[in-house]
């Protein structure tokens, strides 16, 4: 793989290669960045506050696992020209498809609720009225998705991803011990292998590698119409870049809370409260930037997870589903997107609903879906008829299977631990 990268960026071809890379750039990075949604930020903040820099070592593994799984997804999409939903329906039939679709829809709805809920909490912290803000953000998201084409949507998502820089500034403002942070990322430093640490490590993994992420990267590659041999290697490189960028920003989220809340032994009960909690140690700017970061992550997570269900519906049931299609031609796609956001909005605004139970249910469902999705991924990447010369080779297959097993065990662990906590 590294040999390939070297060839691609060799002097003579550099300009051409860069253009091709930029042409395919988007899907994998956006998918990976949206793994840092509001729920992700909350998890990183809690982990950083409780275990300090030591939890950073987990990020290295998560980055590798994310890169491997996303690469398989991108490779399948570019080679077959089909989304994960298409392939599951065509290879495993309508019964399996209906079960997977309903599981995914419910889990995604839970994730959208978690993101909207984080937006609600953050608006309250900033003293903004939640109800109009949530209604406004749902309407704006719908207009943005229906009126814009793929290109405008991608550009907005990439711009939104830039907002993650807020976490870098926030982290810098907390004056962390950079040496210790970097050392802890590469080498295991001050790790106390307690039960809680294992849970936190798994939570970090679970918030980054998700069933919806696997579906979305497929669909987004298809919607961008990335096909053909010459694009594949650049799309593969992008998955590694995306995975790196995601955890690059996660590093700063953890560092910000590690340098403040962990160092001063301030317990954090909810991830969304991190913006307020770091204020006394890092100043107002860091606090505001952290809060804006959560708002931004919530918006990105909500839109992308909503789109994932809509894409999956179109693929499973054969309807037109593309950001490049007008509303009249992709009605089901856009209406399903709106429906999810509206249901989530109503639930978040209901005071009597237990968000804790919803998040627990979502985590469990994601945990159950993930092994099944990886089974499909491995099945397809080993299908010579579909993948041709891009079938997993023996060593890659072993590696992918080991990675999948780690993720599956982590997912099952999360469900079981949640059950005990519940």
């Amino acid at each position: 793989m590294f040999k390939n990268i070297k060839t691609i960026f060799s002097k003579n071809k550099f300009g051409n290669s860069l253009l091709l890379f930029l042409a395919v750039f988007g899907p994998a990075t956006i998918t990976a960045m949206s793994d840092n949604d509001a729920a992700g930020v909350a998890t990183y903040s809690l982990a950083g506050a409780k275990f300090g820099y030591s939890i950073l070592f987990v990020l290295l593994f998560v980055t590798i696992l994310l890169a491997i799984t996303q690469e398989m997804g991108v490779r399948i999409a570019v080679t077959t020209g089909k989304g994960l939903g298409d392939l599951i329906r065509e290879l495993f039939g309508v019964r399996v498809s209906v079960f997977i679709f309903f599981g995914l829809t419910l889990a995604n709805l839970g994730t959208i609720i978690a993101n909207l809920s984080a937006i609600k909490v953050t608006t309250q912290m900033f003293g903004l009225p939640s109800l109009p803000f949530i209604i406004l953000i749902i309407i704006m998201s719908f207009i943005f998705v229906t009126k814009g084409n793929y290109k405008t949507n991608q550009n907005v998502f990439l711009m939104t991803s830039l907002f993650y820089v807020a976490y870098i500034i926030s982290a810098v403002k907390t004056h962390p011990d950079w040496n210790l942070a970097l050392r802890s990322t590469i080498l295991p430093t001050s790790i106390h292998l307690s039960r809680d640490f294992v849970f936190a490590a798994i939570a970090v993994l679970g918030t980054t590698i998700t069933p919806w992420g696997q579906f979305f990267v497929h669909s987004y590659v298809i919607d961008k119409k990335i096909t053909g041999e010459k694009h594949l290697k650049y799309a593969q490189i992008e998955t590694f870049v995306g995975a790196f960028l995601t955890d690059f920003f996660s590093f700063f989220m953890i560092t910000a809370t590690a340098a403040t809340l962990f160092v001063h032994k301030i317990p954090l009960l909810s991830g969304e409260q991190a913006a307020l909690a770091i204020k006394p140690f890092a100043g107002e700017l860091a606090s505001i930037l952290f809060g804006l970061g959560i708002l931004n992550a919530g918006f990105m997570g909500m839109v992308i997870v909503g789109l994932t269900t809509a894409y999956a519906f179109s693929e499973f049931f054969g309807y037109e589903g593309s950001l490049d299609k007008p509303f009249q031609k992709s009605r089901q796609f856009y209406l399903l997107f709106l429906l999810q956001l509206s249901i989530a909005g109503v639930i978040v605004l209901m005071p009597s609903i237990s968000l804790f139970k919803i998040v627990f249910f979502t985590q469990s469902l994601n945990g159950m879906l993930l092994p099944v999705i990886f089974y499909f991924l491995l099945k397809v990447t080993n299908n010579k008829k579909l993948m041709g010369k891009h079938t997993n080779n023996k060593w890659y297959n072993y590696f992918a299977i080991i990675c999948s097993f780690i993720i599956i065990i982590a997912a099952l662990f999360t469900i079981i631990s949640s059950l005990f906590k519940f």
Partner: protein
Amino acid sequence: MLYFSEVKGKKVLTEDNVEIGKLDDLIFLASTNPLITKLVVKNKLQEEFLIPISYIHKMNKDIYLKKGFQTNDLSENEIYINKNLVDTQIIDLKGNKVVRVNDVAIQDKDNLMVFGIDIGFLGILRWFYSGEAIVKTLHFLGLKPAPKFLSWGDVQPLELAKGKVILKKNEERLKNLRPEDLADYLEKTNIANTRKMLKILDKNLAKEVIESFNVNYQISLFHTFKSDRIIEWLNLIDDDEAVDILLTFSKKKRTEIINALDKEKQKKVLYLLEYTETAIGSLLIADYMTVKPTNTVREVINRIKKETGDYYYFNDVYVVNDMNQLIGVFNLHELIISDIDAQVYKFMHQKLILLYLTTPKGIALRKFLKYRLHVLPVIDFNRKILGVVAIDDLSNLIKQK
């Protein structure tokens, strides 16, 4: 009518009850006449056998094969329903995704043949054991999901072999359609389009297409033609249909047209017109019952018990759509032998023998005798049922004359 989801997994046995395996798939001809040719049976060892359908002895809960059945190989132009058609993405000519194949409808009268593609919600539900319970619950809640079909005539059979379900929606490809499908399609477009299409079609196909139009459309179409074109088409189409159309013209125009017809045709038309003096409207009786396609056998039987006690003659139940247009018929025998919770669209006949108020008595009598029926429905030009005519009343009237 059967669905593939209902037959897949049925036990396949010999006449003397020896189990061979389970039905895994069906093989059919990828052509405009999609006859089902072979059963694909898998045994417990997952070995696959292709058995020609001519060996089917009977098919009910299980499939029984005749003794001494033989297996065969896949022939040219044959493809699998499950492997090549079910779950496949349907696209239109421009490559837009339309929907997926949820199930395949099979016509089980005379020959087994692919009838159409189920693209609706019911097509998905049928694959689930709880599907029927969901449908019953929806019915209980007052929601009656109707089946949604794509006619076989809308699909390009040649593309199927390449694993693609592509719809045919441009004029060149319409020539390969069955006349009745083409008629259905043209009825939905405007008359100008239909005239253009009839001009480019082969004469025989055009004749069949005209005969497949509903009478209302036929009349509207002929009234847009100039005399020479009317004469040309009337010479080609069936005598009964020609008389129905001629009766809608003024007496002067009718005489002018008849005089210009071929001698043989002229003779037949004049003979039939002699019977048009008395309209069959005077024979109409209201002893008939209509139901909706989604009504179940149970619901229909309950209605028959309540409503038909004082009927003069009752054997057929007519099926009408939401616009009250007649779309099917079934008789009491077909009703009784069907599953009590089956919806009537599953076994109704869609090919109808109909009378219009303008149908001459002689032609009506010929239809009764030709199809050996006792009662025929009379409809208006909007396909709405006006009443029924019994052969006894008609023959008495003719006898009196």
